């Protein structure tokens, strides 16, 4: 990596989480107390030669955070609400307090492409058809114009510079996008170390060699669209080519996410991740079985107390018969309360069962 490329790493050092194996570029001297992904262990810093890391390339563009605080609070509150017997630690205040800003990487490839290509291109054209109606001895005819596609063979050569072709730089890229949704690229900005290097930046864990197949497929799709446009056609199919890729240049695009966590019954940190633009939140929502059991036990104890009291009233009813009715009501209430004690446990079991675990 040359000096120019190294300059982007100004003020950053590498931290690796030994628990989740995620690597980060973190602001020098501000190593987070816990891994910004799994929140289980502090990051371990590694040697000084960051530029020598195998999968690291300079960042070229980034997407800024666009999430207002009010929106953030609203999203987090909605995440917490509606969980029966939520864990003690799961509160909007805790989630907001623990939020970490994080940039995730995507490969950006600039590449010159030369190729011969062949395809069928489609041109829209109109044909005249008719729909007729017969009633009362008369025909009423209506002309209908239908659009059809005429396919024609085309071939050619292309010599194009393709810039900023994106490819996943993380093995988890597609699951993150699936959980959080797409990012809007229109606000993309040139990388500025003074703005970005105060945040945590995730290190790529997918090499350019691994990502090349994605790049090639993306260039092929883009080239097919351009060839269609070049032929002044509206459609293209059966695009085949013999490409030659020259001078590929790899850089990174950084997109913004926020991470936080809460602690469940078992004392485990459950990570939560948020889209840095839309605020869409993803994370496993778990209800607390411990709290549900406590509630159930309280109900059971109450039920037992009422039952014992009702038995005493039954004994007393031998001298004062009017108390017998009270005793019957008491026993019935005790039974109902005893049966109701199962509800908290069942509700938590049902809620946890219905929640899909979110892994990012």
């Amino acid at each position, binding site marked *: 990596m040359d000096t120019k490329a190294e300059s982007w790493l100004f003020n950053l050092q590498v931290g690796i989480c030994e628990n989740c194996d995620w690597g980060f570029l973190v602001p020098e001297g501000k190593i987070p107390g816990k891994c910004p992904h799994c929140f289980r262990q502090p990051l371990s810093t590694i040697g000084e030669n960051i530029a020598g890391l195998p999968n690291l390339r300079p960042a070229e563009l980034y997407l800024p955070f666009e999430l207002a605080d009010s929106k953030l609070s609203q999203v987090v509150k909605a995440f917490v609400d509606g969980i029966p017997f939520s864990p003690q630690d799961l509160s909007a205040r805790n989630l907001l307090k623990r939020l970490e800003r994080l940039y995730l990487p995507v490969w950006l490839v600039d590449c010159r492409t030369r190729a011969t290509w062949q395809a069928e291109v489609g041109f829209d054209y109109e044909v005249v058809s008719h*729909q*007729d*109606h017969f009633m009362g001895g008369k025909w009423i005819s209506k002309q209908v114009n239908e659009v059809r596609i005429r396919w024609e063979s085309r071939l050619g050569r292309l010599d194009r510079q393709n810039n900023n072709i994106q490819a996943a730089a993380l093995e988890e890229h597609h699951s993150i996008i699936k959980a959080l949704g797409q990012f809007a690229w229109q606000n993309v900005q040139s990388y500025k170390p003074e703005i970005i290097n105060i945040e945590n930046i995730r290190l790529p864990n997918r090499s350019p060699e691994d990502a090349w197949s994605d790049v090639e497929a993306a260039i092929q799709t883009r080239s097919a669209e351009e060839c269609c446009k070049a*032929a*002044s056609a509206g459609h293209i199919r059966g695009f085949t080519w013999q490409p030659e890729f020259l001078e590929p240049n790899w850089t990174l695009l950084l997109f913004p996410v926020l991470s936080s966590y809460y602690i469940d019954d078992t004392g485990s940190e459950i990570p939560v991740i948020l889209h840095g633009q839309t605020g869409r939140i993803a994370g496993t929502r778990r209800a607390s079985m411990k709290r549900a059991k406590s509630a159930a036990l309280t109900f059971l104890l109450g039920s037992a107390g009422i039952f014992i009291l009702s038995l005493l009233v039954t004994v007393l009813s031998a001298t004062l018969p009017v108390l017998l009715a009270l005793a019957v009501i008491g026993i019935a209430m005790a039974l109902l309360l005893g049966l109701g004690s199962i509800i908290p446990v069942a509700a938590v079991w049902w809620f946890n069962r219905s929640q899909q675990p979110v892994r990012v």
Partner: protein
Amino acid sequence: MVENFPPPGYIAVASAVEGIEVFMPAPAKPNLQTDLFEFKCPQCGATTAFSAEEGSLTCPNCGYQEQLNPSRSGKQAQEFEFTPVTLERSALSQVEGRQDLACQACGALTSVPATQISHSCPFCGSNKVFQKESPQDNLRPKYLIPFSVTQKTCADISRPWLGSSWMTPGALKGKSLLTNFTGIYLPFWTFDSVTNAAWKAEVGHDRTERYYQDGEWRTRTVTDWRWESGSVRLNIDDLIVAGTGKLSSRLVSQISEFDLKDLVDFEAKYLAGLQAHMYDIPLEMAWENGRQKMREKTKSACLEQTSTSKVRNFSMDLDFSAESWKYILLPIYLHTYRHAERSYTLLINGQSGAIAGQRPVDWNKIWLVTAALLAPGVTLGMLGIITLALAGIGVAIGGIGFVLFIIGLAVSLVILVQANKLDDI
């Protein structure tokens, strides 16, 4: 990278994107200009003409024959879709009036109808075929059925046909003028379509019921009307519609049964020495005629689905799909003969020999026959009236006379209708 690029048969087209070259297969050059073909014998220089008997280009002078190798397209002949552009252009290329034609052999200037695409110079006898200028390649004839019936066969077909009806004048049987048949390639459109129809109607079901009236039991027929519905899908292939209005459509329709399996690619040589005309009924108008026939066919198919033939409040929705057309030339012999100061036209299908035409009606003969048919009834009727006084014999004679009169009247009416029909074409 491929060294030899583009491959042979491809031509460059304008690209809308910088850095991308686009090539397309070189299109077959549409010949939209006027082409003139003349036919000379390579042996003796005389004018050659297409011979239906030989199926070749023949020199009547030295007997030279040039065999034609027909590219038989048959039912595989290319069909075209109805695009708004084609419909518009077809109407534009409709030709009116006449055009002057300078003979390249003798220099004589002759005037021919603008729809005519072949011509024999009346001065030197040379045969010419000229492909007209066309706004679109597929609006020129691309296929034709060559003549297979000869002129001699036409005479053999027409002579007995003329004498086959007793209503025609007796002199017609001996007409020896029926030799000069003119072979003409007439323009026709063929149409394909799939018709999808959904119909509903009230269908009447008759039943007999008994009822009591005026002290006795009687029977009567009552119709119960029930709603029925159904759907029909017809695949209509190669419906032939005339592309010219210059001949009686009734006569043309009578000989329009052609076997399109014999369609060959258009070649000027098939037209040598024969007449040929391009369409004067444009595609849109012909398609309207064709659709009318398709509607009626589909309607009949719908009516066949009803459980009885008593139908009322019939309605249907008809959707045309997969519509296509082609423009073809079909062989027809035309002969016009004169009888009693009037002209009559005869048409013969140049492929099958089917004949249709006008025949003069000998009305004197018709009236004589009518009088003869009515005479017995009238005579016996009169006799009955006269003999009515003789002990009632007249009633029987008058009765027989009345019956004979009614029979004679009915037969006469049939004869008159047929004669009128024969005379009306």
